[in-house]
């Protein structure tokens, strides 16, 4: 019983670390793709727009 719980803890630590690492490591690539499909004003939006469908009133058009 003790042995199996120990194994379970070990496995969950392994997988959570793996998921964390893959999120961190894949992030630059995801950001590359997200930037590639944005329009020019969206790329230079401040504060940063994370997704293209994020609607926000532009200060320039007002």
């Amino acid at each position, binding site marked *: 019983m003790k042995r199996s719980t120990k194994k379970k803890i*070990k*496995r969950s630590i*392994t*997988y959570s*670390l*793996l998921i964390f*690492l*893959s999120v961190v*490591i*894949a992030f*630059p*690539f995801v*950001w*590359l793709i997200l*930037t590639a499909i944005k329009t020019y004003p969206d*790329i*230079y*939006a*401040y*504060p*940063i727009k994370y997704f293209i469908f994020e609607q926000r009133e532009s200060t320039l058009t007002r």
Partner: protein
Amino acid sequence: MKKLVREEKTAFKMVLPYLLIVVLLFVYLIGSNIYSSFTTEEGTFTLQNYTSVFTDPVVGRSMINTVFWVIGSVLGQLLLGLLVALLLNESTKGQILFRSIILILPWATLDIVAGVMWKWMYNDMYGVLNDILVKLNMINDYIPWLATENMAMISVIIANIWKGFCLSGMFFLAGLQTIPPDLYEAAEIDGANSIKRFWRITIPQLKPVIMTTLMLTVIWTINYFPLIYIMTGGGPGYGTETVVTYIYKLGFRFLEFNKAAALSNILFIAIFAIAFVFLRSIAKEEAR
């Protein structure tokens, strides 16, 4: 020498033309580089190029920068690669998915693309890294990643670790999979805990792989040009100027081809010496 089988002879004959072209190309390029490093622009013999390299303060600065760049990048790459390899070796389900995300994606990204991407992420105003770190409350103000000399070096090293750790990760994973599992079982029966098992079994068994990977990574990092050139171009000031970017600048910006040739010959000899030391220690390790 062992006698060649007939098929092997045919194979060598078929490879020969290609081999000749490659070898001649190398010999010609290195020869012309050595020739131009010992001549002036008019074509007379001189040692001026070498003396001007040794008296140039930027060369010393770029060598120090190269040492930092190599130590930071190689340490980061090997440690992250080892961590990823150990984790992937532990996992059973979804190993292919994690392997393709962690080990393939950065390696498959082009050098130029990675450089432009990191430069944009490091941007002071519109960069995503500052935004995320502020939102996570890890920093209070935006960091000018590529604007000060020390910070630029650290940023470039981080980008290089991201780009290059996959190779050592893959090598280590392959090395870990060759360790026989009965070693671990025997150690477990003898009562060794997991930290002891790591230091007494995993590291010694992995040592040849670590040495080879260390050698390859050191040489590639010294020679690695595109990422640092795209991201900072050697700037700000001479903050991230490594020897290779300075050779490029000397040759193609300042048009001092002979001096650039002299500096690249010095770099070649230095890399050759490093490789020689590594190869000898690897050979010694194997002979034991």
